[in-house]
């Protein structure tokens, strides 16, 4: 306990700085992938994408980010084993933050596709199993997370496939596609609004101070979704539709889907904020709870909201300083996506991620989006996809885990050497 008493504040500041660094990294790089499909389908401009990302990433982090943060903080490691030496948990979490931050920096410099989620989970498992003991890792939970990394892209792919097929069946392949689109798009908007509202109401609002029952949440979610639908219908009805040829018809239908894409982009930013901010804030929350309680590891206190605000601020900072450029790059390179296919891919992954957030499972937003895009591709909705990328992603997955682990082990023993044990 001596270490915590003597250096507690210093360690918290270090953890805070590294946490902010990682959140900055998420905002600078990861957000671009989340917004890429929306910008690429030309439904929203880059400026709109940045504003949406700023608002909804932060909202997602604050309103629905608590659950995944808790998993990163205390779900992967069994805190019972660290009762006697709480400083080890503090060192480990700081090491994980630094390891993940550095690895992401290296990976993005070389253009390797890595996931922040995979890096941080690898880092935590690494320091815990080598630095403390193999038993310190909650392998059941880790297995569950690893499984979700396979399931989430597949689920997003299936959802995207079904969504795109439904768009084709109920809107494009009808006698009057424009009218069908104007009727159908509000229904999709309802779905988008409902899923997002439901997850944040059930899982997110506890730490804000609102504790509502399932029935109440259902009711509120329905009301919110309904209001969004009305808003969407107004926007849709303002689109002029005159089509003299099948080509102009397609263009008009896509314009209607552009309205939908606006909502989907917000949902995606929200989902990303709800899941990925935890990668930066989870370890920081663990450090904070140990230090603020004077060395208690297995306490049950909730998470102070200033941590989520810090995470949200870090993301916003990353976006302002660097992320907007990356969004530009990604958006301009995805030219083959139309609003209807972009909607299917984006909403499928947003729904998957936000449900994972509700179930407190950290998944990779990027990988889920890749799954969604492939799902649309399978439904013949895209001109050309590079399937080799799937192999590359899979490899980066395998490499990222040990890389994060090795780095965090290195930093763990360094910190232990500097501050000592006791």
């Amino acid at each position: 306990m001596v270490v915590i008493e003597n250096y507690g504040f210093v360690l918290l500041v270090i953890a805070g700085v590294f946490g902010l660094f990682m959140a900055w990294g998420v905002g600078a790089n990861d957000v671009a992938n989340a917004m890429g499909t929306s910008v690429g389908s030309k439904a929203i401009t880059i400026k709109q994408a940045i504003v949406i990302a700023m608002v909804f990433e932060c909202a997602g982090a604050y309103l629905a980010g608590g659950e995944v943060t808790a998993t990163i903080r205390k779900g992967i490691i069994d805190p019972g084993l660290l009762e006697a030496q709480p400083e080890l948990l503090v060192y480990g979490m700081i090491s994980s933050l630094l390891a993940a931050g550095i690895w992401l920096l290296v990976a993005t410099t070389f253009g390797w596709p890595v996931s922040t989620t995979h890096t941080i989970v690898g880092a935590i498992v690494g320091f815990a199993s080598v630095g403390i003991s193999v038993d310190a890792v909650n392998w059941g939970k880790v297995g569950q997370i690893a499984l979700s990394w396979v399931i989430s892209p597949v689920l997003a792919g299936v959802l995207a496939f079904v969504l795109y097929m439904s768009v084709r069946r109920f809107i494009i392949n009808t006698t009057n596609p424009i009218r069908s689109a104007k009727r159908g798009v509000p229904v999709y908007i309802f779905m988008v609004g409902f899923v997002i509202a439901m997850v944040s109401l059930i899982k997110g609002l506890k730490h804000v101070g609102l504790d509502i029952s399932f029935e109440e949440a259902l009711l509120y979610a329905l009301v919110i979704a309904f209001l969004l639908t009305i808003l969407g219908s107004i926007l849709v009805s303002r689109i002029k539709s005159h089509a003299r040829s099948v080509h102009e018809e397609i263009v008009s239908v896509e314009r209607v889907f552009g309205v939908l894409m606006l909502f989907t982009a917000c949902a995606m930013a929200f989902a990303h904020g709800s899941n990925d901010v935890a990668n930066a804030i989870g370890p920081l929350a663990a450090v904070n709870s140990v230090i603020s309680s004077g060395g208690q590891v297995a306490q049950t206190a909730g998470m102070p909201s200033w941590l989520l605000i810090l995470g949200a601020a870090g993301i916003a900072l990353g976006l302002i300083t660097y992320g907007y450029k990356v969004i530009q790059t990604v958006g301009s390179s995805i030219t083959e996506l139309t609003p209807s296919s972009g909607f299917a891919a984006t909403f499928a992954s947003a729904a998957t991620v936000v449900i994972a957030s509700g179930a407190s499972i950290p998944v990779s937003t990027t990988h889920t989006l890749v799954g969604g895009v492939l799902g649309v591709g399978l439904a013949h909705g895209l001109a050309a996809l590079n399937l080799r990328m799937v192999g590359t992603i899979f490899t980066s997955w395998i490499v990222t885990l040990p890389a994060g682990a090795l780095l965090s082990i290195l930093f763990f023993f360094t910190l232990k050497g500097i501050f000592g044990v006791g």
Partner: protein
Amino acid sequence: MPKQPIFSKLFRESPFVAVQQHMEFASEAVGQLSNLFQASHAADWARVEEVYNTISEIESQADEIKREVRISLPRGLFLPVYRADLLELVQLQDQIPNKAKDTAGLILGRKIVFPEVLQEQIVEFVQVSQEGVLSVLKVTSQLDDLIRSGFSNREVHVVEDLVNEVGVIEHRADEKQILLRSQVHVLEPSNNPLDMMFCYKIIELIASITDVSQQVSHRVLCMVAR
């Protein structure tokens, strides 16, 4: 800092745009044939050579696009149509500028001048084949819309109608060819046999442009109808 974010690498440029571009060059090459015959009928060989060079230039540009399509379609690419179908389509399309160039080359090399009574008709025959190629251009221009609409039935119907249009033109070209051949036959006794042989040859080449056009349109239909 990031070189190419993961998402940029997942998407590839649509090969259908290049297919359409290739077809545009093909139709441009065939479009030059009217000038070619006008020059040859006037026995203006400098002008014929000029037209030949233009066609040859267009043909090599088309070749370049064909090459690009081939290298931009490696295995491991995920397309809404069969990769082999697409490669075959470009291969087929590429015969159109090739045949235009062959025609021009033959006329220039052997200084072929059609008998005066046939001159007007051969120009009309060329115009029919140009119409055919322009119709095919309309077919391939639908490819992008087809992808965008996820091969909707309505869009496939549009392609079907255009393919029928090409079929009608091909039929007209056939009739024209029969007529022309019989007229050449009538002229055979009073003309140099070799000249006559080359008249047949040129008629055949122009007819084959329309044949290939029709094959291209059928290939597109097979590719998108399922």
